């Protein structure tokens, strides 16, 4: 059994899964229950400035009959009285010494306000503080949340105020609503933060009601941008995570990163670990299914680690990071082509239409006698399942024309039916960087490019 314990900037927990600061961590009673289910830690719903919430504050994006691929919210930070939160935090920590109890905070941007909240949090016995620089709505209009996270100088300034007083580990939580996530991260590093976390929610408008023409969700006739989270944001979160992991400044600082944004299953979790997260936070998946999902998050992760021979979480963290590369360093001689397994193929022709309409027109329909056939070429008088199934042609890739774009592989509904097979390109390995250093004209002149292609045998029609 793999060891799931982590030590994140000095904060220990029995497994890497923490509830993200959000509705699932709104109160002591909830977190007690979550810990009973086995969550390794919880980041308390952000406390700080006084707020008032509105109704209809969660929207959701549903797709293809799947509910809540993403949630969108205009919820503010905790609307419970500060003192109540602090009392419950103390109580939870006393009951659960082995779990990570981290308190998220957001106050007015003054040194006094931050000093005051830090001291109050430390007084509860909490294990750490997370600075919420991410809330993209409401709080940002009041100069907090993403209004801070979007300006590296503010990030750095406030983090310094906090670091001046804090004795427990401080995590800076970044907003994804920024052009380059690296800048606020470096600001936090410069200010001496102990750790980073990302991503908070993404600005979004989730829908317009086609009956009433109102914004969804409808808040008394109005609506506005809210924060987007859940399965749909995972790729964005993974990209930002790897951007930090591959940044020189952040990497050298050695600050651990708590990853979140779309983690729903142990598989998502493993991917976050592989790209450098060393603790994991979950919100939307818990809002969808409840605390019970922790069981498979741990069980699945542990089984996978066993099967891969990883003994501890540390061994997994960052394992795939070195593969993150810029386009200019990809091997241009790498060649893969699509290959369809006719035994698995159910002949839906989705690959055919995708390749022919939008890729490289290199999938053919071939009948039982090996003849090419056009779609819809059956006689109108032909019908019945025997004729329809019996005469149905097989899609076949013309490998010599396939550019290996992988679209067909992506659309095929059958697992393992279209494989991208690596084939020799017959060309020497070269990256764009190397190529344009050796022959700069190739990057600026189409004729030079054509000459190069002819030389190495690249033919694109």
């Amino acid at each position, binding site marked *: 059994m793999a060891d799931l314990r982590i030590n994140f900037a000095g904060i220990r927990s029995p497994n890497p899964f923490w509830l993200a600061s959000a509705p699932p961590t709104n109160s002591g009673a909830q977190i007690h229950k979550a810990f009973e289910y086995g969550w390794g830690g919880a980041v308390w719903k952000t406390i700080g400035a006084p707020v008032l919430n509105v109704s209809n504050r969660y929207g959701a994006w549903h797709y293809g009959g799947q509910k809540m691929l993403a949630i969108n919210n205009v919820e503010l930070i905790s609307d419970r009285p500060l003192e109540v939160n602090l009392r419950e935090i103390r109580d939870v920590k006393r009951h659960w010494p082995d779990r990570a109890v981290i308190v998220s905070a957001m106050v007015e941007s003054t040194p006094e306000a931050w000093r005051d909240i830090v001291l109050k949090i430390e007084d509860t016995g909490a294990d750490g503080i997370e600075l919420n620089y991410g809330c993209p709505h409401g709080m940002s209009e009041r100069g907090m949340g993403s209004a801070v996270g979007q300006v590296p100088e503010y990030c750095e300034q406030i983090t310094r105020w906090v670091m001046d007083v804090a004795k427990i580990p401080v995590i800076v939580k970044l907003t994804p609503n920024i052009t380059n996530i690296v800048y606020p991260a470096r600001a936090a590093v410069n200010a001496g933060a102990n750790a980073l976390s990302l991503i908070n929610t993404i600005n979004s408008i989730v829908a317009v009601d086609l009956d009433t023409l109102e914004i969804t969700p409808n808040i008394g006739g109005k609506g506005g941008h809210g924060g987007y989270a859940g399965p749909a944001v995972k790729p964005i979160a993974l990209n930002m995570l790897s951007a930090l992991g591959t940044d020189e400044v952040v990497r050298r600082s050695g600050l651990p990163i708590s990853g979140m944004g779309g983690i729903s299953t142990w598989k998502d979790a493993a991917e976050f670990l592989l790209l450098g997260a060393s603790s994991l936070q979950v919100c939307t998946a818990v809002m969808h299914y409840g605390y019970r999902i922790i069981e498979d998050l741990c069980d699945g992760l542990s089984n996978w680690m066993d099967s891969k021979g990883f003994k501890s979480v540390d061994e997994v963290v960052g394992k795939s990071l070195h593969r993150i590369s810029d386009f200019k360093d990809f091997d241009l001689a790498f060649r893969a082509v699509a290959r369809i397994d006719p035994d698995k193929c159910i002949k839906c022709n989705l690959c055919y239409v995708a390749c022919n309409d939008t890729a490289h027109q290199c999938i053919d329909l071939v009948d039982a006698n090996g003849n090419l056939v056009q779609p819809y070429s059956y006689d109108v008088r032909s*019908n*019945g*399942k025997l004729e329809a199934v019996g005469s149905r042609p097989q899609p076949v890739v013309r490998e010599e024309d396939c550019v290996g774009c992988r679209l067909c592989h992506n659309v095929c509904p059958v697992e393992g039916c279209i494989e991208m097979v690596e084939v020799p390109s017959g060309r020497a390995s070269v990256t764009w960087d190397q190529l344009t250093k050796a022959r700069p004209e190739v990057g600026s002149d189409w004729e030079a490019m054509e000459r190069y292609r002819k030389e190495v045998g690249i033919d694109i029609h």
Partner: protein
Amino acid sequence: MNDRQIIRPEEVLAEYYPPLTDHEAVVEANRCLYCYDAPCTHACPTHIDIPKFIKKIATENVVGSARTILEANLMGATCARVCPVQELCEGACVLNAEEKPIMIGRLQRYATDYVYSRGIDVFKAGPPTGKKVAVIGAGPAGLTCAGELAKLGHSVTVFEKRELPGGLSTYGIIVLREPVEVALAEVEMVKRLGVEVKTGMELGANLSFEQIRREYDAVFLSVGLGAVPALGIPGEEHIVDGLSYIEASKMNPQGLEVGRNVAVIGAGNTAIDCATVAKRLGAERVTMVYRRTDAEMTAYPHEYEFAKKEGIEFRFLTQPVRVIVEGGKVTGLECVRMELGAPDASGRPAPRPVPGSEFVLPADQVVKAIGQEKPALAQMLGLQTEKGYIKVNDDFETSLSGVYAGGDCVRAKGSASTVMAVEDGKLAAFAIHRKLVPLRAAADD
């Protein structure tokens, strides 16, 4: 029969499948892969663009979905219910290989019911061509042909001998599969396209062919098939005709006399329908008597399975030879056992009686459902025939120029079904259109 009094026909014979809810329909629609050049569409005799109509359900464009269906198949609401989908679209669905096929029939019903229940017409009559077409017989073939011609701008009159239009959809398909109202709603839709439907008009009786040919630019014969043929056994006059039996179960179920112990002769889909009606209306025992085996029966496998689930019994390799009548009442059906011999003209092993194997099957009601007679009209109008059916060319034109035919009455090949009749009606309408207004037809192509 005391227990019969508590049986309510409107309950026991009510449509078997409930409608899909909005949610069920969207979930099922989303399961469809949206295949390209989909095999389900190929398998459908009318080639409804099935992925297209299903995706429209998924996007909640249900009117567009219904239009997609009805464009290819004007009797889409009937077909959604009566088609042997296991042999057609659903049987060809690529998901048979994976899990279970999409419920295409029930989704089709969802979309077509949507427009009918809201009174939405998805088509209107075309700009008038000034041409007149007579359609004889208001079954699925005739109504489709009439509707398609009206959409193309022709002035169409349908002559129907029965009191109600709809053909076998109205009189012959058990309510369990299709309520009468569905068939009649389709008739109304066709009428709203400007088609005139005249009932109580029988060609060859109160309607003369000469007059029709004089007054109309083209004629489409869609008269279906005839009555159940005679078995030619003693006591035949005591046998109930299967088609009338079903008709009564639809039109006047209270008045339908159902035995306690019913023997049904035949093993096609109609025979199973008769047996189902008898069983559901309170018969204690229903036995189907067939001279071949289950391997040769013409009922679809899914119908056979359904019948067994209904508790219907089967006597294979059994040939009725005489109805036993005592004191004016049927008491049994004398039968002889059969054995299979060499293949006959139909390619199936020919059954032959086992000498001395006669026995009596107790029964107080005997129903026969052994097919329908070939259309008598062919002879009467002097049309060329093929195996007794009206002979037509690829354009559905008979041996008389300008006289077209389609539906069951031309079904010399393939199995007679509603959807095939619809396809005939549609293709015949296009052929008639090409013939009557060739320039316009070419321009529209």
